[in-house]
């Protein structure tokens, strides 16, 4: 019998090695696999390449990984919200490298990797600073930039519910990068709120078929990842 579930986050992240590249799902708080990231902090792997839309927030989860100095390079589209001080401090000291990628290009590069493509041409960034040094090409009168697929050794993702076969359903804006990263990681590890019996997931709501998932672990949401504003201000 196939059983991709593991009992603990520690077990789920045990294979991560020094120097590994890791995609981390989520946008803002929804969909961030916070418990897996905390387990990775405990685990100790370092010199990591992290691929994530942002740069973490505060001193926990990805923010904590930054604080601990475990990230050698970040590929992100929006690493500079106010809460990303742990990354900012390291970056300004030159202790972490940043590759800034437009958000749509970031997700498309990840998709290209998962889909076995050799790269694609996107209009985004053509003629701007972020296209410097990149191949460009005029297609049907419009300028495009060549972008390469983006693979990773690991993808840490979060879903709402999953089964032992690795089938996953997301909930609302939790989906974001997660189903795409699930296709592009060499080893895909999912944190889910609930593991259910096979066939309990509604067929038409299985957003990530189990084929893409290697391990999943049931765990509650990291408390730092639900943070309604006290004064109505954006984080």
């Amino acid at each position, binding site marked *: 019998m196939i059983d991709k579930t593991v009992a603990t986050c520690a077990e789920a992240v045990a294979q991560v090695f020094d120097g590994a590249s890791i995609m981390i799902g989520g946008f803002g708080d929804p969909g961030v696999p916070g418990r897996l990231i905390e387990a990775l902090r405990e685990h100790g792997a370092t010199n990591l390449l992290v691929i994530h839309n942002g740069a973490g927030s505060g001193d926990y989860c990805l923010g904590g990984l930054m604080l601990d100095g475990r990230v050698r390079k970040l590929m992100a589209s929006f690493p500079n919200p106010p809460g990303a001080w742990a990354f900012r401090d390291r970056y300004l000291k030159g202790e972490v490298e940043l590759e800034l990628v437009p958000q749509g290009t970031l997700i498309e590069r990840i998709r290209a990797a998962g889909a076995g493509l050799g790269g694609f041409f996107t209009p985004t960034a053509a003629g701007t600073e972020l296209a410097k040094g990149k191949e460009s090409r005029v297609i049907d009168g419009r300028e495009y930039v060549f972008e390469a697929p983006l693979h990773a050794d690991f993808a840490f993702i979060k879903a709402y519910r999953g089964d032992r076969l690795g089938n996953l359903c997301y909930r609302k804006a939790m*989906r974001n990068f997660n189903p795409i990263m699930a296709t592009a990681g060499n080893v895909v590890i999912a944190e889910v709120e609930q593991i259910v019996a096979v066939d309990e997931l509604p067929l038409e709501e299985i957003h990530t078929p189990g084929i893409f998932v290697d391990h999943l672990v049931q765990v509650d949401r990291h408390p730092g990842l639900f943070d309604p504003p006290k004064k109505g201000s954006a984080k």
Partner: protein
Amino acid sequence: MTLTREGIAYRVACDLPEGSYVNLGIGIPTLVPGFLPADKEIFIHSENGVLGVGPMSAPGTEDPDLVNASKQYVTLVPGGSVFDHALSFAMIRGGHITHSVIGAIEVAANGDLANWRVPGEKVPGVGGAMDLAFGVRNLYVAMNHVTNKGEPKILNKCTCPLTAPRCVRRIYTDLALIEVTPDGLVLREVAPGLDASAVQAKTEAPLRVAGDCREMIVPAEVNGIKLSA
């Protein structure tokens, strides 16, 4: 008189047609939904995979899995939908989002937009700004006409790094509504009580005054919110 930030948002809201799919940037654009008439169905897109973003969640009712692109807890309108990032940016880059309303640091006479890299900013961030600027046909800038120091933001040529070249279609400011045309900027409307020369005085790029240039129709206030001052 000049428009308040809410007044600029109000004026933009008047131009969004029923059935449009609109992505709103941070700043003044986030105020636009407050001025959309209730009987006009317009869907707000958020690049993190939400179409049909509704009002902010009331305190205590926040859904931990539903935020907008500014990471604010929001609601979903009836008929809204959720999807992954790849499809969300397919909507943007593929030209499906009909309108984008965004802030700007600078706009040039040819429609060049600079809004992603603030001068002096030590850590850069671009988010989805470039995808929107390259992908959305009706790119509307909503901003104050001049900087905090009174310097023009509508220039002959941008000095900051570009978000995208020749992408802006209209500029809504506290002073005017300006259209970007192949022949340069055209002044379409002025804030109540202003004239074209007052707008030109605060604009580096030359403005051609439209034959039917008129005063904006913006009430002084709506529901107790001041639209002009």
